[in-house]
């Protein structure tokens, strides 16, 4: 039984409603997280009322010409099959009696009751006739219901595949090996002799985290690793007596330079001892005004992009007639070629394929049935709708004013904690230093926490940055539990009155189960103010997988009911892509988190804000 059926205008006025009162506010949640986010092509939306209320499923239908939305709400445990049917029938009947001036439609109660009876009867008939086929159908619906989260059903299939591969990893029993292998793939220059020692270290790190591996296997590996390093050093010592000091080659008669070795002098520990003056590279690009080319974009819309002659020409001619006459009603067949062209254009700009597909379907859903204005072509209507949709998606949902948040936390007397997460090699440590530089320029005291206790050189890297920026760094070396290191860092920060703590974590692949569990533990234990996902702008379809899996793992493995998900995105390596800016769109669409920073270079000042209008313009060029 339906809980409620609502009819409302796009402007927000409820025209007609029937049914019981709903717990929570499912309609507002539907509008905010689904319809306004251009996910209107999905089949349904599930809502859980807070504080243990009921669990609802919502389905909707649009009437784009009149600007009406029809929403049906029912309990999730009931699998009602007639809802789509009923919504279509209601839409048909209501559009006949609709009048923009009227706001009360009491006579619709009768019509609705009739329609509901008819729809239920039809569903009963279908059920009786399909008795044998019902079991697989229900199973299909269950799977669909399970997958009907924000990521969509494709994300579910990928997750299953991901689980399978991580299962394989566990099956090997070599957690560290799996990690070492993935690292080896990233850094192809890793020497072979170092790999086993990496495995050993990884295992030792893995032990306090999961505790679910074989101690015997570790003991077996340790002598193996030791042996290999012995042979490695043995080889090196043999090579030493044969060393001859090389002389510098002189190319022409100019005197040779005295010093060609630019490495900094090392002290006994092997650490570099450098005296850096405080790095002052000028103003961070976050604070610079961007000179935007703000000429009107309407000229570009007028260009006709017809590629195929023949059938296209005939279509163009008749569409010209219709556009002048001005009463064409858009239907799916009309929209298909324009949307296909748009989808191809988006994909050439490096937008992930399934995101482009979903966006195009959503725009089609919002344009179907609409009347074309006079003197407008189908392609220009579609272009305008897509532009509006993109602008809406990329505009941040919540405030991205970090300085204001930092001031608020300062008033409360506790440090503002930012955690940088992401896969391997995207630029977390580099951009962490850039963010630290920007915050320093606004007179905020920053502290770094080196919670990448896995990758060799990570702590030294951060130490160098800290020395150049002259800010304190909290580090505990390698092979420590990152969650504990982070907690101690935050305590240290509140002791020495640092305003912001920037926590660097190790890069990890999204389907590496133990590492994601470790990350989830870090976030749950320390409850940071901002979880920043660092993603590179060069990524293509993998962005969707990365973000959806990160969010899913953070949600699944959290201990509290309100899981902390990714709050913001930091887009890096933006200077390497010319106009293939689609990764920004994919990431924002799939996670719903705004892009807070954009890294566009490797020096401290190369950090800027995302300019939504210019990105939309570039995407649709």
């Amino acid at each position: 039984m339906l809980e409620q059926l609502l009819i409302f205008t796009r402007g927000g006025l409820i025209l007609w409603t029937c049914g019981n009162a709903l717990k929570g506010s499912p309609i507002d949640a539907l509008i905010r997280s689904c319809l306004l986010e251009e996910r209107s092509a999905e089949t349904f939306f599930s809502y859980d009322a807070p504080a243990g209320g009921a669990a609802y499923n919502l389905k909707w239908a649009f009437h784009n010409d009149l600007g009406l939305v029809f929403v049906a709400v029912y309990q999730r445990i009931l699998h009602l099959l007639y809802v789509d049917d009923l919504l279509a029938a209601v839409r048909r009947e209501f559009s006949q009696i609709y009048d923009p001036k009227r706001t009360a439609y009491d006579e619709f109660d009768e019509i609705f009751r009739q329609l509901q009876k008819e729809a239920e009867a039809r569903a009963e008939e279908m059920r009786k006739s399909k008795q044998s086929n019902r079991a697989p159908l229900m199973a299909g619906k269950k799977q669909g219901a399970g997958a009907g989260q924000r990521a969509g059903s494709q994300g579910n299939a990928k997750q299953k595949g991901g689980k399978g591969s991580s299962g394989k990893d566990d099956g090997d029993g070599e957690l560290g090996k799996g990690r070492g292998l993935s690292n080896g793939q990233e850094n192809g220059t890793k020497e072979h002799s170092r790999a086993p020692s990496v495995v050993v270290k990884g295992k030792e790190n893995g032990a306090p985290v999961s505790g679910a591996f074989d101690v015997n296997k570790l003991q077996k590996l340790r002598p193996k690793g030791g042996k290999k390093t012995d042979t490695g050093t043995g080889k090196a010592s043999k090579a030493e007596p044969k060393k001859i000091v090389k002389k510098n080659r002189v190319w022409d008669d100019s005197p040779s330079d005295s010093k060609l070795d630019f490495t900094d002098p090392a002290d006994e520990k092997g650490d570099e001892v450098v005296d850096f003056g405080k790095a002052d590279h000028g103003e961070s690009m976050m604070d610079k005004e961007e000179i935007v080319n703000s000429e009107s974009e309407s000229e570009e819309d007028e260009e006709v992009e017809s590629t195929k002659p023949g059938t296209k020409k005939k279509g163009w001619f008749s569409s010209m007639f219709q556009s002048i006459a001005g009463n064409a009603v858009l239907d799916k067949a009309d929209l298909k070629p324009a949307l296909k062209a748009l989808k191809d254009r988006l994909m050439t700009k490096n937008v992930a394929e399934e995101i482009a597909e979903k966006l195009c379907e959503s725009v089609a859903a919002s344009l179907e049935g609409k009347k074309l204005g006079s003197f407008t072509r189908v392609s220009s209507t579609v272009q305008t709708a897509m532009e509006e949709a993109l602008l809406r998606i990329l505009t941040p949902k919540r405030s991205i004013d970090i300085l204001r948040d930092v001031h608020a936390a300062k008033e409360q007397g506790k440090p503002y904690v930012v955690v940088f997460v992401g896969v391997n090699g995207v630029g977390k440590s580099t951009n962490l230093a850039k963010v630290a530089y920007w915050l320093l320029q606004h007179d905020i005291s920053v502290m770094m926490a080196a919670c990448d206790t896995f990758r060799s050189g990570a702590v030294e890297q951060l130490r160098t940055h800290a020395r150049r920026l002259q800010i304190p760094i909290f580090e505990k070396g390698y092979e420590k539990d990152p969650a504990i290191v982070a907690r101690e860092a935050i305590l240290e920060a509140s002791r020495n009155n640092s305003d912001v703590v920037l926590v660097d974590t190790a890069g990890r692949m999204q389907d590496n189960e133990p590492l994601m569990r470790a990350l989830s533990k870090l976030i749950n234990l320390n409850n940071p103010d901002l979880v920043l996902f660092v993603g590179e702008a060069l990524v293509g379809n993998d962005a969707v997988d990365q973000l959806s899996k990160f969010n899913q793992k953070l949600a699944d493995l959290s201990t509290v009911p309100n899981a902390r998900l990714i709050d913001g995105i930091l887009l890096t390596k933006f200077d390497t892509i010319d106009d293939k800016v689609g990764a920004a769109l994919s990431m924002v669409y799939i996670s719903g988190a705004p892009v807070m920073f954009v890294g566009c270079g490797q020096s401290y000042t190369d950090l800027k804000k995302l300019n939504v209008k210019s990105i939309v313009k570039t995407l649709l060029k």
Partner: protein
Amino acid sequence: MEQWMHQIEQWVRQPPVEQLYAALAVLVVTLAFFSILRLLKPSKSATIVLAGLSGSGKTTLFFQLCDDSPHQGTVTSMDPNEGTFVLHSELEKKGKLKPVHLVDVPGHSQLRPKLDEFLPHAAGLIFVVDSLDFLPNCRAAAEYLYDILTKASMVKRKTPILIVCNKTDRMTAHSKEFIKKQLEKEIDELRTSRNAISSADIANEYTLGVPGEAFTFSQCRNKVTIAEASGLTGEISQVKQFIRDHVEP
């Protein structure tokens, strides 16, 4: 030269040709058309814009003003509501009644750019604040208000602003003095955090208030007044007064 004069004399003395009549007729008609258009075009814009956070009660207020009743309730708006109407109380007055063009802009943060379409033509802005659920949304409301107060189109045209504390029919609603003080405090904080940047932020084109002093609404270049209202019960007399004052008859 004389030949020319002779030719012109001859031409003038000729009986006028049909084409001449037609040309004259077209000219007269066009002139008449344009003069009628100019008469019919409204001389000054009478647009009032309703803005505020999502859930503050703008759409309810809009329908209360338009139709004197909030109908069956509202949901989050996806598109702006526009209406041209004469205020109901005005219908009793005799004389020339000027219709008011009221625009209700959605408050959802992703739909904020729509506000920029309507602000340049606005004769007045009504900023609706939820006085029931005020404290959790105080910062967001203050940020929105700050953005509006520093927009070039608002400052240059000195558009008057009315801050309406909505939902005052409930017992636990805050008073307008409390809300005013909280908003001023929040905007003061925003001023320091935004103006710490040396070159201007793209969105905020003007600075607000007097540096060194705490911010008050009287320091704004636009005239800011505060009122209380309740969209559901219909106590919107102060809002109507504002509209009447700023839409010239």
